[in-house]
């Protein structure tokens, strides 16, 4: 199954995004940053693109000035 992993620079950005996504009732999971992805921050956000609107997420993050990297990951 294909997921999109959101990678942030700091935990505070993860926290801000967590709050934002909950407020906007968007489905997501907090996960530890996968070992094969390098990141300064130990927490990441996992999105199932079939359950959440990635476009909406990207625009929400942009509006709120939260920088983030998007990585596609195949997880069985």
């Amino acid at each position, binding site marked *: 199954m294909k997921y999109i992993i959101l990678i942030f620079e700091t935990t505070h950005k993860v*926290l801000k995004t*967590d*709050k934002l996504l*909950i407020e906007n009732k968007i489905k997501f*999971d*907090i*996960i*530890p940053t996968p070992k094969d992805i390098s990141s300064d921050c130990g*927490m990441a956000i*996992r999105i199932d693109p079939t359950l959440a609107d990635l476009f909406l997420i990207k625009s929400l993050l942009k509006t709120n000035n939260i920088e983030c990297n998007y990585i596609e990951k195949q997880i069985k």
Partner: protein
Amino acid sequence: MKIVDAKGKLCPMPLIMTKKALSEIKENELLKILIDNDTSVKNVTRFLDEHGMKVHIVKVGIVSELTVSKTGIIPESVQVEDYCKIENSNTSNYIVAFQKNRLGDGAEDLGNILIKAFINTLPETTLKPKSLIFLNSGIFLALKDSLVLDALKKLEQMGIEILVCGTCLDYYHKKQELEVGIISNMYDIIERLSQTGNIIYP
């Protein structure tokens, strides 16, 4: 040769289908059963073996083709459900007990995402816990609106026992909102905790 297609079926269905097919064929006639999950392959093989029938298994991709000759009789009274065993070779002898719905003491929002990450990672660990116990505010993680409900349900389906403190549910008036696990009591909880190897308190 009679062919039983049990692909996509989970126990006890393949067992039920096998028992029925055997009753419909003549002695020494061949039966081929198609199964695509390892647990059912093991259970059906054991079922046939214990009734005097040797199974020949060929695996084609993810589908196992079990061929057997009717050299035994399955009494009508046999309960196939007795042969349903879910293998849990990778549940270890440890228990995770959640005493609150956060991880650690300190910033509340940090504690929230830490517990979410913790629970979301459990389904992927090599050695899974035997049981999960939820106490005091930990019970909130098992309720209808919990953000970790999917992960907990997945763990329950894997055979991990989930016990939720009844007193706590009652105190918080949340008994009706329990979505995963069973309502438990201090006796059962202490039985589990005292008979296990390690206990992790996140």
